[in-house]
């Protein structure tokens, strides 16, 4: 069972503000979904069997995105920088 307090904690970890209505609905829905997921409880297998291919490209220097393009979608920009919220 997960509680509203658990959902509140997860929401803080995920940086998503939840209103009271969503908190209530999500708590109920999450319990139903997590209960369904419990069917995996008894599974055992070696993960080394998983096929995963990660091929790195050669480390060659190529032009990167021009500063103007990189900033074009930023909601707030100042002197060629992204402007973020204050830290402290």
């Amino acid at each position, binding site marked *: 069972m997960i509680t509203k307090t658990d959902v509140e904690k997860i929401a803080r970890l995920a940086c998503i503000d939840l209103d009271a209505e969503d908190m209530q609905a999500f708590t109920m829905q999450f319990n139903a979904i997590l209960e369904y*997921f419990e069917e995996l409880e008894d599974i055992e297998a070696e993960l080394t069997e*998983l096929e995963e291919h990660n*091929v790195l*490209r050669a480390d060659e220097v190529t032009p990167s995105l021009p500063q103007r393009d990189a900033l074009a979608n930023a909601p707030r920009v100042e002197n060629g920088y992204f402007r973020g*919220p*204050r830290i402290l």
Partner: protein
Amino acid sequence: MSHREHVEELLDAIGRSKLNAFITVDYEGARQQAEEADAGELDGRLAGVPVAIKDAISTKGLRTTCASKMLEHYVPPYDAFVVKKLREEGAVIIGKTNMDEFSMGTSTETSFFGPCKNPWDLERVPGGSSGGSAAAVAAHEADLALGSDTGGSIRCPASFCGVVGLKPTYGRVSRNGLVSYGNSMEQIGPIARTVKACAALFEVIAGYDPWDSTCRNVPVPHYGARLADEITGLEVGVPQDFFGEGVDPVVENATWEAIAVLESLGVHAKETSMPNLKYALSAYYIQAMSEASSNLARYSGIIYGHRVQKDHDWHTTFSENRASGFGKEVKRRILLGTYALSAGYYDKYYLKARKARVLISRDFRRVFKQFDALIAPTMPYAAFKIGEKNEDPLSLYKVDINTVPINLANVPSLSVPCGRKGRLPIGMQIIGDQFNEQLLFNIAFQFEQSTNNKHAV
């Protein structure tokens, strides 16, 4: 008819349409590209052919929203690899299609821009998440379209709208420029009205790209040239696990009738079983949500995306940006993914899902020692009504029961129309071993020819 006239026809159809298949239509760009094609300035395998693109795939200078308020005004500074390939081959990019927000859904109802509708019945969903792409192709609002498939998002709408859609082998198509949701499972793939057109589009987008480290360097065959290759004597498996509880008997019958048609073409069909498929739904959702929670962490509203008016400290600002920029289903999946990866629960959920993926992959490897391909219903039933499954997320997840195993096993699957329930199309999927898309096209093409394409749009 000139390319310009054809494009104008499509733009008219889109303008009159009740489907809401497009989020952004590139009127000016499409007209200009069509004129260039008419003037002979574009050459290539798709010269002058209008293609619609799922709004999760980046198009330089053309708004790409992922059907989210978060990216409502986002204009990509670069083209996705597949879009570059389309441009190189002379395709006309007509617009960006509607979808479930961040590809999270099976109905194209979670779009910030409103639900897309099924061209066969406006009260029903087109399937999802690439619903706009399939609906546009079915309704002749585009000739071809690209979608993306993480757990069925190309095959489901192809099945519901009566068109052909391929989920390629993982690593066959570059994901560079595709907005990530469940990156270990998703592929971009083609949607078309015929198998031949689907193969032609696939041939253009497949291939190696050093900018996607999971993309494989395997030669791309000329799929279209071999569609009539002999299929007599092929061994096809029919896993009973795809015909479980909840599969509509009408869908089951349509699938068996299609198998009978294949048998008349000399294919041998035999029932088989894949017992670990029962874990697929949980394994898929845990992995997809976990990957989503990490992939969507980038949306903080600072570098791009939705940002609230007033800044507070960074944690509050990020949390407010994300709360007002994401829809409910996206929040649900990010939160559940965060939970599944969090200390104390990782072993119980994420690790178990990875282990289930091992078992499911093993089932596929085993059946592909015995069979050349597998046949199954793509979806358990025909298109459902808009709003019918809104209340209970788990019931909507269960709609994906037959499509998710394919993504977990990294294999290709082609959905083709194989029957109808009333007016509503039914699709079957032809599943193959990794990098064996050619065989799927051949089987589907010869099925389509021998049924006179009567099930398609």
